[in-house]
């Protein structure tokens, strides 16, 4: 028994030491995504801040998948624990976060805020309060095989109809010439948020909106995309997430691919079969009244309302999201800054030639309807992507599918607004 007391005594004195050091310098806990080079970048920037301020930072890696990361974040914040001070958060989580985080509006000057792309700022703000500090943007771009387009005398497509015809023509000729596994167009077709982004983009490109649902336009889009498989896209694309799309494109098996900007840096590595053969442009427009449309992705940082070190945490958020840090991330790892001016930086443009297009796309970027659907966004998104998979497989007629989509999305919106009124 005496042994046990001894152990307790040792533990007690140890914890005193720990608490004593805590009092001197704050310990900040931050979640950082562990995808690609992100965690390394996060560590490096955090270490600089530690040296500068004398505070201690613990990094908690987040799961790669956005939906799994959301589960972790949601659990932490719902439990109202002070365990984590800063969360790295995705674009569509803002309406959930609003109840759990500190408004950052007063900690950034008007000038600093105005430097960001308006769409990002709009997405991250609720009722005039800045919920999430913008950190980097993700925007879908069209990657194409420059060499193949040149070989067949084609220009990069400006309309989806163009893309379809070019893809079909090159695919047929190349296959006849023995390149049997070449496909025209690959995209993120797995039933997850990545497909949802494409759906919003396709509808936007044809001049409509997903919410409020523009049924005529949605029928037009569904009729168009129902031709993809198997004419220009493999049936397997229905199980592709971003890395599969990159894999197929990078191994030289696709003419067009729509994916996030990080694809660029990796297709240009030494052992990439398509090195030097890749072109990038903004996503094409469709139909009679279409316009080029990309959907906003990307991640930001927010400070938990339950944090015991809010001042220090806010300072770290400011440090990580400041222009110099965003610039460094862009230079070394092709992460798209949220600050407009950086897209005119010559050094960044040399390192990432696609920044011109990305900056252009971010000007006209549209948002997923996460704020209109509130808590039901995840469920609405899942039911939409399921429906779209059925459209792509031609298992449901486009007009039937569009009607069901309209009914579903209006139903979810109704439930979300009912929920909001009962809460108030």
């Amino acid at each position, binding site marked *: 028994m005496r042994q046990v007391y001894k152990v307790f005594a040792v533990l007690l004195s140890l914890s005193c030491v720990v608490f004593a050091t805590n009092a001197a310098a704050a310990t900040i806990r931050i979640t950082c995504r562990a995808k690609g080079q992100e965690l390394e970048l996060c560590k490096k920037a955090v270490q600089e801040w530690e040296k500068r301020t004398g505070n201690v930072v613990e990094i908690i890696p987040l799961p790669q998948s956005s939906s799994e990361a959301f589960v972790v974040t949601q659990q932490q914040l719902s439990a109202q624990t002070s365990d984590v001070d800063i969360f790295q958060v995705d674009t569509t989580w803002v309406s959930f976060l609003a109840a759990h985080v500190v408004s950052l509006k007063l900690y950034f000057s008007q000038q600093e805020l105005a430097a960001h792309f308006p769409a990002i700022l709009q997405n991250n703000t609720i009722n005039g309060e800045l919920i999430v500090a913008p950190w980097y943007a993700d925007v879908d771009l069209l990657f194409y095989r420059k060499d193949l387009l040149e070989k067949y005398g084609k220009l990069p497509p400006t309309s989806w109809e163009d893309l379809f015809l070019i893809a079909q023509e090159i695919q047929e000729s190349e296959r006849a010439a023995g390149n049997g596994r070449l496909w025209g167009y690959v995209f993120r077709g797995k039933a997850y948020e990545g497909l949802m982004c494409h759906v919003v983009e396709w509808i936007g490109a044809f001049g409509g909106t997903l919410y409020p649902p523009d049924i005529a336009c949605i029928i037009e889009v569904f009729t168009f995309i129902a031709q993809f498989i198997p004419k220009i896209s493999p049936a397997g694309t229905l*199980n592709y997430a971003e890395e599969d799309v990159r894999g197929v494109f990078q191994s030289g098996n696709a003419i067009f691919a729509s994916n996030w900007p990080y694809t660029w840096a990796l297709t240009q590595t030494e052992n990439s079969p398509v090195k030097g053969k890749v072109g990038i442009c903004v996503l094409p427009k469709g139909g009679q009244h279409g316009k080029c449309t990309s959907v906003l992705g990307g991640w930001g940082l927010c400070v938990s309302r339950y944090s015991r070190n809010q001042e220090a945490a806010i300072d770290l958020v400011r440090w990580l999201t400041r222009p110099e840090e965003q610039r460094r991330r862009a230079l070394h790892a092709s992460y798209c800054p949220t600050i407009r001016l950086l897209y005119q930086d010559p050094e960044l443009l040399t390192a990432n030639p696609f920044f011109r297009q990305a900056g252009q796309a971010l000007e006209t970027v549209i948002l997923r309807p996460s704020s209109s659907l509130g808590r039901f966004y995840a469920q609405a998104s899942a039911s939409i992507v399921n429906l779209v998979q059925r459209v792509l497989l031609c298992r449901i007629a486009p007009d039937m599918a569009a009607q069901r989509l309209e009914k579903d999305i209006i139903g979810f919106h109704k439930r979300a607004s009912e929920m909001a009124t009962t809460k108030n």
Partner: protein
Amino acid sequence: MTPCLFVLLSVAAWPLFRTFLFSLTDAQLGDIPHAQFVGFANFAELFADDNWWSAVKNTLLFATFSVPCEAILGLMIALVLHKTFMGRGLLRAAVLVPWAIPTIVSARMWSWMLHDVYGVINELLVWIGAIAAPLPWTAAPELSLITIVLVDVWKTTPFMALLLLAGLQALPQDCFEAALVDGVSRKRIFFRITLPLLRPTLIVALIFRTLDALRIFDLVYILSSGDADTDTMSVYARRHFVDYANVGHGSAAAVCLFFIVALVTVLYINIGRHNILGEV
């Protein structure tokens, strides 16, 4: 007895009871304290959901196809491993490899090998001429269930083989020796002696595997395209519980899953008891 009961109550009965309670409320993952009692509304919603019934159907289909395949293959492997030959120890260890790899890892490995554009399986099948063009094994709804059954058979046959091998080794040797002395054919020995004697072990193994198969989650979660049409009951429950943060609905699905598994267990045990007693 009391400590045992206490452990059982705290680790099994309490969570089960809580899940049942949640299934009667409108609890949200982010806001459990404010849950309100809604009676059987979640169950009514669940039974009206086509996706739930397709999940039940998928799970039952999966169990019906995977378990017999695993039993037959497992028995064949066990019979081979029961013989004495060079390198038997090594082979016995090697057979266990698929079972030893964590399912998440092996499922990810299979999803790469089954990839429709750069997967090695399509490459091989096209090369030997079994298929004309690469197949989207995991993306096409009509193929993905078959694929999941095949991967599950690959993974759990070793488990079946191991259980049956243990059963084989425990069999009394005298009746085999007597049969050999009398010159009974090998086929007859298998069907008249080995199989009846092995029946109790076989039934225990089948119960284990069926219950496991009914709560299949990881393979489907990794391999399928996330389409609600390919959900199994566990995947469906998780989707509602976690992704949609709808604890009430997810719990209702979990409670139904529990009752379905319980029902199958009771059926199996009754059949098993009858059979085992019949042998004595």
